[in-house]
């Protein structure tokens, strides 16, 4: 029986394993150092915040693996012998495979800051990081202040976590406005404001110079590059992005770039060895996507796709329309299609934007100024239907069509205040159009593209 070994029990590896099991009776082993069972990495924050216990972040009960004959092995792979198809573990154990799937995810970036390895300095990615945080920042007596370095999605989540225990937080963001490499200014500025509402000391356009230690080798303070200001703190969170977790492959002859280089079939340069998820790097980017996509959803999609190939139905990784989501403190964010920040958008792409006068709600719709084609939407504080936007993108609908039928796309809970009228009115005013907002129609919602 063919033995499929998967390194990494995150969403990519587990999705691949599940789909291989659905389609075959191959022997499957998942190897992980981090935890015995699959858990949802995106939910780690909720454990510290007390919303959930660790067991709640495990999407499958523990009997699931045995029942589905998916073997789980805890251990750290130190070397991959591609010639003999054997994994070497750090404890000298070995495991041979017929096909190998590398799904080892990411690790937090460290940019060589002085003091970056001190006690009390941590990322927020692994389960071990959470244990570390619990140790160094159990409450605001043990931790009088935490400094977070890097203004991305993990950074703001770490800030939210610490604030849930009333720990003062200073948040250093390199950019001039939060996440404005990705978000249009309207949204980025709204989030800046919301961060400050949560009593987080947000420092924009600020870089870390060094982290200073006390005499026990623990974090004592940080120094800011631009001003030289020293901020006393007990915990430093490094959240300046992530990069593929592939150091253990450096001695192998698998081709590496920033990640494990793969082709459209998620194959590496070595036959029978594949890479998926955060650690995989496409030779050439797909559409407007990045070569490395460190996103939950793409990890899952690669797992779904590769399982087909492994089970004899060779399938290229061909993701559909881009989508993503996040939550910035209390503000939910969803995006469908492409909305780039002012810096990143093409010349023919223009925005239509609407913002609620009081609440933290806004949308940006990106469309082609010549063809009027709808390109993408960012929505903050208003939930939207994935299916509908996916359909409109497939159908190459116009901005006018999207606005006319915006009610179909609303996904907020019942009784919520709807804003389609205001949104369309603003568009009409700005564009001298006369679009009439249509009422929600189940028939349209359920019609396929």
């Amino acid at each position, binding site marked *: 029986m063919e033995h499929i070994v998967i390194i990494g029990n995150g969403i990519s590896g587990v999705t691949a394993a599940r789909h291989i099991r659905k389609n075959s009776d191959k022997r499957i082993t998942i190897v992980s150092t981090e935890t015995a069972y699959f858990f949802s990495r995106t939910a780690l924050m909720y454990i510290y915040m007390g*919303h959930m216990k660790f067991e709640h972040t495990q999407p499958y009960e523990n009997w699931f693996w045995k029942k589905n004959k998916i073997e789980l092995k805890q251990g750290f792979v130190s070397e991959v012998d591609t010639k003999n198809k054997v994994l070497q573990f750090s404890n000298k154990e070995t495991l041979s495979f017929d096909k190998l799937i590398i799904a080892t995810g990411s690790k937090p970036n460290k940019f060589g800051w002085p003091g970056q390895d001190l006690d009390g300095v941590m990322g927020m990615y692994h389960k071990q990081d959470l244990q570390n945080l619990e140790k160094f920042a159990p409450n605001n007596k043990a931790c009088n202040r935490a400094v977070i370095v890097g203004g991305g999605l993990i950074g703001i989540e770490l800030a939210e976590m610490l604030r849930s225990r009333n720990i003062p937080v200073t948040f250093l963001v390199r950019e001039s406005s939060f996440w404005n490499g990705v978000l249009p200014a309207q949204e980025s500025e709204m989030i800046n404001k919301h961060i400050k509402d949560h009593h987080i000391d947000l420092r924009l356009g600020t870089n870390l110079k060094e982290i200073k230690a006390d005499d026990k080798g623990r974090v004592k303070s940080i120094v800011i590059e631009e001003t030289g200001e020293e901020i006393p703190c007990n915990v430093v969170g490094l959240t300046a992005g992530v990069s593929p977790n592939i150091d253990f492959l450096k001695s192998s002859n698998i081709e590496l770039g920033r990640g494990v280089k793969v082709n459209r079939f998620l194959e590496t340069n070595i036959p029978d060895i594949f890479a998926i998820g955060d650690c995989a790097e496409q030779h050439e980017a797909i559409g407007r996507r990045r070569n490395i996509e460190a996103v939950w959803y793409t990890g899952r999609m690669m797992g779904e796709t590769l399982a087909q190939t492994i089970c004899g139905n060779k399938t290229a990784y061909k993701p559909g329309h881009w989508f993503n989501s996040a939550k910035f403190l209390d503000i939910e964010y969803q995006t469908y299609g492409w909305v780039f920040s002012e810096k990143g958008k093409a010349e023919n792409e223009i925005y239509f934007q609407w913002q609620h006068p009081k609440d933290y709600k806004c949308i940006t719709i990106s469309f082609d100024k010549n063809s009027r084609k709808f390109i993408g939407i960012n929505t903050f504080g208003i939930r939207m239907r994935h299916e509908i936007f*996916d359909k409109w993108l497939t159908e190459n609908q116009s901005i006018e069509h999207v606005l006319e039928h915006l009610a179909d796309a609303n996904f907020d809970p019942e009784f919520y205040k709807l804003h389609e009228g205001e949104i369309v009115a603003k568009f009409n005013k700005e564009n001298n159009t006369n679009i009439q907002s249509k009422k929600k129609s189940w028939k349209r919602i359920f019609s396929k593209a």
Partner: protein
Amino acid sequence: MKIIKHTGLVIFLLGLTLFTGTIFTGNFSFTQQELDNYITEKGYKNEVIKEELSKAIVTTESLNIFQFSKKARNAFANANNHYDKLIAKYDAEKNWDKKGEQYQYKINGKPHTLSYEIAKKAGSGFVRENAGLLWFLTFGLGIIGALLFIIPNLVLLGKPGIKNDGIYLESATNRGWIAWLVLVYLVTFYLVLYFMADYAVNWTFILDPISKALNGGPASQWFVYGFLYCTIMLTMGVRMFIKYRHNKYQIVRTISVLFFQIVFAFLIPEIMTSLNMPGYDFKNAFPLDYDFFFDWNIESLKSSGGIGIFILVWGIVLTLIIVPVMVYFFGKRWYCSWVCGCGGLAETLGDPYRQHSNKSLNAWKLERWLIHSVLVFSLVMTLVTLYCYFSGTESLLGIKSQWIKDTYSFLIGAWFAGVIGTGFYPIFGNRVWCRFGCPLAAYLGLVQRFKSRFRITTNGGQCISCGNCSTYCEQGIDVRSYAQKGENIVRSSCVGCGVCSAVCPRGVLKLENGPEAGRINPTDVLLGNDVNLMDLVNNK
């Protein structure tokens, strides 16, 4: 703010202590004259009871309710014993006529109920004489304290949004010692209420004035329960309004359950009683209202003229037509989390404990066996009762009508719905009864599963498997297991509380009533991936 909160807690605990403490107060005794009047009023034929009771409770000694109850119960037991001995004697002598005669002298009723009835008249003391003041010191302080504890959350919880911070870090909400203490208190409360009502007779004195104003009569233990129920729901409703103030579905739903509890379950029946009508809760549908078809209820309705007949017809129409039709259009939520009293308590008092429902597959299996068994039990009981009522016999297929009614009332009505259903909130979650026991929920669930427009829609491929939805599902549904497959949630047990949707950080879940086509949509490959792959895998 924290100081206000803590002050509130102290005041609340003081109120609770005084409320509990009142039980131990007061003197209970009769003068001979009062006893004679009582026995005449009751029309007891028993010739020994007078002597027994006057030995027991005609005294100048000051008896508290526990001493009084013991003596009174003994007196009734002795009085009945006297005739039991005679029965045994005549039985041995085969003197059937004499034996048969003795039964009329026996006094029927549960010992604590007989004792309660006397205690209600025989009690005196500070509590009874100062009902108004005592109301303030118990209910009043409880409400003020609780509100002082709750209202600062407007500021302390920060900006509107989901605020479940610390739930698993605190003893009260993480099955710690506080939770166990609350469990013990609640279980004891229900045991007293259902089985030892005489011990709580002082509570009825506190509410006598309010009861008289509403229905013209003194308060019974059920009036105390109803009043307490409404008070708790209202107070904890305030907590809901603050906690979910960003979520209009939760606000509207909470207003609805409060309205139906206070107006339909409490005020209307009380007012009907004061107008000499049978007090009826118009929203309480059979088989949750399990004694609706009991002979005494049918008799009482039949003898109440037009309104009684209306209630009889309404009750039948409610169960057979209104309930299933509404479930078809809106799901069982229209009842379970918008109207029902049990649901109302679960959604207010029980909200802090909703995360404790068990999400395992085994719990789901147990749930399906148990709840459907109770449904069958309630239907069999009703069939037997109705058959016996109309045929005038005492049993059907060897099942005695009285026995099955008593068994159901005791096991399901008192133990399952009350003691376990509410008492176990802090450890097993707030919907134990609704999930495992309620026969009406089982019935609504069958309709919801097989013929309804209701579902929780999963938003394409947006789920990140975080588990907030499953954790906070009070019905123990593993919501995530559907959401992470991009599949809508169509489960018979879903009461549509809407909290999964509220706690979802990525806007994945929405409660909707829509067309039946496409309601159940199992998927393997989720939206967002290659369309051809989706077609290939999902349309096999």
